[in-house]
């Protein structure tokens, strides 16, 4: 049970992480680590970030006592309202911090990948704010299921580039962004959207997202929660929430995308059903065949449709700092419906997975206090749900 303050010189969280990247990128990764270290220690950077998080992003986001849902579930449920952050999800915490970093490093152009589009929108937003040129890579399947976010990015002045390779989802978007970066690294900063990728990205994104957990602890005051629950795709909202709690008395539960069910093989549950390997520059749990070829993930939620996971989550799993489980597409949709009708909050499909897990486990959780990271709002998913349900 060791909580890693920062990864070692090789970028490892225990046995996970590292820097398996083409040599062309290595100098930029080394430079990025130094630049982030300097920025993080620089009171001016921290002050500018804090003021933007307060006045532009709208932090602190509320910790809301969901009384009606609590009654239905038979437990005390507190929602960390990242859905109320500017642009509608936690992703903005990271993009504002990294856009400030890009400006500091003198890089005029930013690239990003996006799955559900929330990270793309958050990156486009930060780039508009700082006057940076922005290009977002998005799988063509995701572009059709998250059309609203494509429009938003374009309105914000960002170029959205469709990715047709592979299954046209998040993995392929990350790969396309990395390939662009191999060519453009001298003038471009890659704002990766989750706690994934080669070192120092998993560490930087965790540091920028830990504000979620830090605020939650402060807002809890005397309340002692039994559990903290969050969804895990790449794992940035969950790591941001978990990290400040890690090693303490609170049980941490990460909920992955079970897709059509683990037995179907069509899911995104890298921690629950994957094996260690190297994906997108880091050693972590991933979905792969016996030959070490990456498998396609599946999830109704574009943000969880990813065959890997952040290396720090892999370390959390192996060291028993958190436990991980999965729920299916259908369970997530039902939970989305439940929260919408009971609390008047339409959650995104991603955090609906976390709620679905609480619903399924409600008998075992009876009477307990549960904090759930409501990582984003569900506007982007409305069309997809309407289509699926034939409404």
């Amino acid at each position, binding site marked *: 049970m060791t909580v890693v303050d920062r990864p070692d010189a*090789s970028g490892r969280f225990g046995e996970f992480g*590292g*820097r*398996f*990247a*083409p*040599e*062309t*990128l*290595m*100098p*930029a990764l*080394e430079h990025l680590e130094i630049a982030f270290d300097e920025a993080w220690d620089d009171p001016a950077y921290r002050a500018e970030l804090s003021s933007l998080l307060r006045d532009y992003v709208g932090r602190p986001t509320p910790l809301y006592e969901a009384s009606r849902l609590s009654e239905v579930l038979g437990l005390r449920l507190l929602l960390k309202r990242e859905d109320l952050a500017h642009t509608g999800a936690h992703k903005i915490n990271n993009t504002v911090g990294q856009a400030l970093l890009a400006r500091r490093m003198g890089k005029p152009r930013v690239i990003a990948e996006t799955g559900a589009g929330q990270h793309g929108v958050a990156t486009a937003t930060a780039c508009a704010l700082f006057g940076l040129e922005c290009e977002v890579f998005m799988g063509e399947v995701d572009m059709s299921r998250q059309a609203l976010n494509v429009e938003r990015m374009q309105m914000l002045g960002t170029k959205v580039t469709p990715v047709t*390779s*592979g299954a046209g989802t998040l*993995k392929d978007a990350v*790969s396309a962004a*990395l*390939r662009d970066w*191999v*060519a*453009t*690294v*001298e003038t471009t900063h890659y704002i990766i959207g989750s706690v994934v990728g080669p070192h120092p990205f998993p560490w930087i994104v965790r540091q920028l997202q830990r504000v979620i957990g830090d605020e939650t602890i402060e807002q809890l005051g005397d309340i002692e929660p039994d559990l903290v629950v969050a969804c895990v795709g790449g794992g940035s909202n969950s790591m941001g929430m978990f990290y400040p709690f890690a090693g303490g008395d609170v049980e941490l539960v990460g909920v992955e995308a079970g897709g059509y069910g683990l037995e179907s093989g069509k899911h995104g549950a890298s921690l629950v059903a994957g094996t260690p*390997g*190297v*994906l*997108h*520059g880091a050693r972590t749990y991933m979905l*792969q065949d*016996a*030959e*070490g*070829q*990456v498998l396609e993930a599946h999830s109704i939620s574009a943000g969880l449709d990813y065959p890997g996971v952040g290396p720090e989550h892999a370390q959390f799993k192996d060291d028993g700092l958190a436990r991980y489980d999965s729920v299916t597409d259908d369970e997530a949709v039902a939970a989305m419906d439940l929260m919408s009708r009971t609390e008047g909050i339409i959650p995104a499909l991603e955090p609906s997975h976390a709620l679905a897990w609480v619903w399924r486990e409600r008998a075992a959780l009876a009477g307990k206090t549960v904090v759930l990271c409501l990582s984003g709002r569900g506007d982007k998913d409305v069309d997809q749900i309407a289509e699926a349900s034939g409404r």
Partner: protein
Amino acid sequence: MTFGETFTAATDRAVLFPYMMCGLPVAAATLDLFVAMADAGADGFEVGIPYADPLMDGPVIQEAGMKALAAGMTLAKGLETTAAVASATGLPCAVMTYVNPVLAMGITEFSVRVGEAGAGAVIIADLPVDESAPFVAALEGAGVGLVQFAAPTTTDARLDQVVAKANPFVYGIAEMGVTGERDGSTSRAAELSRRVRSRSEVPLVLGVGISGPESAKEAAGLADGVIVGTALVRRVLEAPTIGAACEAVAELVTDLAVAVRE
């Protein structure tokens, strides 16, 4: 011949290492492509093993990889092909792949099998010098070298490590970007070549972005060897028959072999 003997024998010119992916155009005919390229003047080969998420490769090699994987190509089968190529042509072969298939097979098992296949070197596109120690150790035990990469962005401190560990050659990334055919300038390759040469006698082989005789000739003037991949793979993907694919790669390799001698 070994890589060392090949570099030594070519005293007054650069050598030519064509790349081809195992499983193209079909697994049973990959050897024919290599033999055709050997007859056309290749000095050695980069034998590609497909990977599902090749971060250093552009659209052509991505497409080739997907096709080869869909037809059932694997690392183990690719090493069998490598053994056949090495034995049939007598030329040195470098096995080129990505890190995860190697980890799945096991670094030690992979090293033993590469050695048994008669390959002299391994190239792993997403394995920088920083992460290479366990691979170098296992491969050394099997008498196989691990190629290290140098890019135009590589810092002096990194370059010192790269040239110290590279065996049997440094893979110099001639142009920024992933593999593909481009009409870029060679100014950055010239600077990279100067920086490598000022540090070490280790052979420098340039690849990435070299697509035809003209760019091969320029690269040959800067280095000990030249790698051409995408242009050959594209010809194979476009060829209507196996025979046409062999002819198409032989034709380009013939022209490239002339170019590296000019």
